[in-house]
Every structure is written in structure tokens, then in C-alpha cells.
């Protein structure tokens, strides 16, 4: 793709260059390069085990890549001298299985970052957290513990938890694939409105409706590399790679249009 060798200074918010990651003998990422502009929504698709989650985790260093570099704006995340906690605080991460803090209420889950990372006073952090809960439509669940919430509600709290840090970039790792079908919509609605508000989002998802209507660009990953990337119209109607075509037809079979 024309994005394989991103140049320095065209205002990219996220830049990934030549990322490699192995787990033992398993060479998972084999040179991934990409970039995103501020406000863009990029959807990543690809077969299971191809390294999509690994890519997201390498971007905010939850897994440390073996080789390659990642920049957030003009700061290099992969640089050893950077305070990784500060940079991570600017990158929201939404997990497939929510990973809400089990011992904390919805409100406390959202509040913990602003309080313990940003050092906000409790009152200010509470106000902020309540705003974020309102944004995902869960003001009335502030005092509920994760186990008392449905999967869809838990995922919306986890989005609020990420938003409370005012991130520059949000990473979503299959945010709806652990959910019962009837709960997927409420999470996608939140994501759609985030995209509309101009949040920069990198989303691993096989929700083709979301990809089609919201994304600016779609990435197809296979075997640890990006095989193809393009805007959704092009990507769905005229995929360049045979592998992409095969995968898309499988996906449509599995999930419907």
C-alpha cells in the first residue's frame, strides 16, 4: 500500500513503523506499518490468530514489540526514555472482555484514572466520571458493581473509563464480540457517536455494518502483515487482493451483511 513507509511530518496522530513481535517461535507481527490522522476511524479485520490484538497491545506497549517504532503525535512511544505511563494515559484501550475492575463500582472504575494517574481531587474526578457515564448513557448505574451489569453495560463503562482520561486515541479490541447479539447495538451506538465527535479510533472488529458506515479506512491483516488497506467503498466493492476477497466472503457468510 502507499502507506507502507509513512513520512515524518504530515500530522499523523499515530504512526507505526515496521513492527515485529514474536512469542517464542511464533512470529506474530512481521513488519506492520500504518498511520492514522486525527479524527480518523480505522477498522482492522482479519482471520483469528493473525496478530490484530497483538498489534493493538504493541501500540500502547502492553506488549513490548521486538522491533519497530510507534509514535503518538511527535512523541515516540517505543522510545525507552519516554514515560510509558503518561503516554498510555493518552491512549484509551477497550478490551474484548471489558476488564472492569471487579472491586469497584462503575463510577469508581471511571474515576480511578483521573484520580490516581492525573491526580484530580475526588470531587472533581467524580464530576468528570459522572459526565463520562452520562455520555455512555449509564448515569443511573454509577453505583453498580461490574457483576451487576449486563455485558453491554460493562463495555460502555469501560469505554467511559477510557474516555475519562481524555485520550488522543482509542484502541478497541473486538469490543462487541463477547456480547449477546441483542447487546451489540448499544455499544456500537456509543462508538458511532464517538467517531462522529471526532475521536481517533483504531477498531479491531468484524461488525461490517460499523466498518462500512463509520470507518475512514479498513485494514485487512493476515499472517502478521497488513495485506490491504483502503477506504470502505473501495475495500468492499473492489478488494485488490484475492485473500481479502476470500476473507470478506467468509465474513459475510458468518455475520451477514
Amino acid at each position: 500500500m502507499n502507506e507502507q513507509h509513512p513520512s515524518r511530518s504530515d500530522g499523523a496522530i499515530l504512526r507505526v513503523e515496521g513492527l515485529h513481535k514474536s512469542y517464542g517461535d511464533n512470529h506474530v507481527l512481521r513488519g506492520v506499518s500504518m498511520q492514522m490522522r486525527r479524527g480518523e476511524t480505522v477498522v482492522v479485520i482479519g482471520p483469528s490468530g493473525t496478530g490484530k490484538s497483538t498489534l493493538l497491545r504493541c501500540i500502547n506497549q502492553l506488549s513490548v514489540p521486538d522491533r519497530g517504532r510507534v509514535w503518538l503525535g511527535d512523541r515516540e512511544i517505543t522510545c525507552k526514555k519516554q514515560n510509558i505511563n503518561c503516554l498510555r494515559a493518552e491512549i484509551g484501550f477497550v478490551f474484548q472482555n471489558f476488564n472492569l475492575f471487579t472491586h469497584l463500582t462503575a463510577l469508581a472504575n471511571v474515576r480511578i484514572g483521573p484520580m490516581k494517574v492525573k491526580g484530580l481531587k475526588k470531587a472533581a474526578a467524580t464530576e468528570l466520571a459522572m459526565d463520562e457515564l452520562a455520555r455512555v448513557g449509564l448515569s443511573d448505574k454509577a453505583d453498580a458493581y461490574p457483576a451487576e451489569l449486563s455485558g453491554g453495560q460493562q463495555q460502555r463503562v469501560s469505554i467511559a473509563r477510557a474516555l475519562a482520561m481524555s485520550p488522543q486515541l482509542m484502541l478497541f479490541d473486538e469490543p462487541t464480540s463477547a456480547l449477546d447479539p441483542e447487546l451489540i447495538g448499544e455499544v456500537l451506538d456509543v462508538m458511532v457517536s464517538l467517531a462522529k465527535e471526532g475521536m481517533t479510533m483504531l477498531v479491531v472488529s468484524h461488525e461490517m455494518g460499523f466498518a462500512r458506515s463509520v470507518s475512514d479506512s479498513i485494514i485487512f491483516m493476515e499472517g502478521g502483515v497488513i495485506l490491504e488497506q483502503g477506504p470502505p467503498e473501495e475495500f468492499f466493492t473492489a478488494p485488490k487482493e484475492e485473500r481479502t476477497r476470500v476473507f470478506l466472503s467468509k465474513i459475510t457468510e458468518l455475520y451477514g451483511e
Partner: protein
Amino acid sequence: MGFFAFAWSILPDLLHATRMTLWITSGSIVLGFLVGIFLALGRVYGPRPIRWLTGGYIQFFRGTPLLVQLLVVYYGLPPYLASLGIQISPLAAAIIGLGLNSAAYQAEYFRGAVQSIQSGQMMAARSVGLSRVRAIRYVILPQALRLVIPSWSNELIYSIKYSSLAYFVSLTELTFVGKKIALHTARTFETYVVVAAIYLVIVLIVSRLLWMLEQRARIPGLGVPTEHR
């Protein structure tokens, strides 16, 4: 003198000695708690040399008799500390001996609790920008401490009973005073029945308190198997 009159007559002395028992127990359990948490965290999160050291500590204290450890601390530590100009009382020596031992057992309970927490909790904590230390403090430990209450209760009850070993280092705790009374009055059996009853009452009260603590600290979905998913 009937049993109850006899029991009544020795009760004041025994209750007085019970205070010493409670001091020894609470001192050693608190010391064991503090040291135990650091041992457990070192064992789970530490770099290899720390994991190795903490593992060795735990193996050593679980693999040698408590009484021997106590005697080593009691006879070995004070002269050594005295050479550094520090005086410690027999009570302090007993608390240190029993506490260091308790730490090894408590560490294993804490480690089990920490390791039973899903790895996603740590990952999520790091993803909001918490450092490892803060993630442990605000996310891992609050959960682990709740999860550990039932097994930790056992350790506390053991340490109430093990405090009687301080008798060997001549602290006037419950068992020691019981033995003196038994010799003195020649009513051995009855004396020890009263002593046992006092231990039992302490254990029952402590169990009840721990149960209340467990109820208070309970959080839906933590510790009990979750019904959904």
C-alpha cells in the same frame, strides 16, 4: 473445692496471662501480615533474584519446626542485637520469631489470591496509565485482600494457638501460667480444661469477627463464582 469454684479461683490469673497471649498473637500476626504481603508480591511480580529469595524464605520457614525457629530468634537475636547496642525484650523476640514464621504462611495465601486474579485486571490498570506499583496497590491488592480472608482466618486461628509456644521462651502467657497453677495446686486436669476453654472462647470470638469482616468486605462478583458468562 468443686470444679467451678476452682475454675473461678484461678480465672483472674489466667485472664491476666491471656493478655500476654493476645499481645503475642496480635504482634506476630501483624508482623506476618506486613512481611507476608511483601514476600507474596516479590514472589509474583519481582525480578528473578527476588522471586528466588522470597521463595527460599518461604521454603525455609515452612520447612523447619516453628519451635526451633523461635528458639533461634530468642537465643540468637538478642546477643547479636546487643552487640549493635539494641536491647529487645523476650516479648519482642517471641513476636519476631512467630511473626517471621507466620509471614511465610501468609505469603502463600496472599500469593494464591493474587494469582487467582485475572490477568486482564493488571492489563486494564496499565492501560489507563497506572504504574505497576499503583496497579498493584489500587487494583490487585484490594481484590486479593478480600479473596484471602477465608484462608487467612485459618492462619490467624493457628497463630492464636501457636502463641503458646512462647511458653518455651518463658513468657508468662496463658499456657505457661496454666502449667504453673497446675503444679502449684496439683489439679492438673481441671486447670488445663479451663486453659483450653479460654483458647476456645478467643478462637470463637475471632472467627465471628472475621466472618463479619468477610461479609462487610463482600463485593458482588468477587470471590464467589460469577453466574453469568
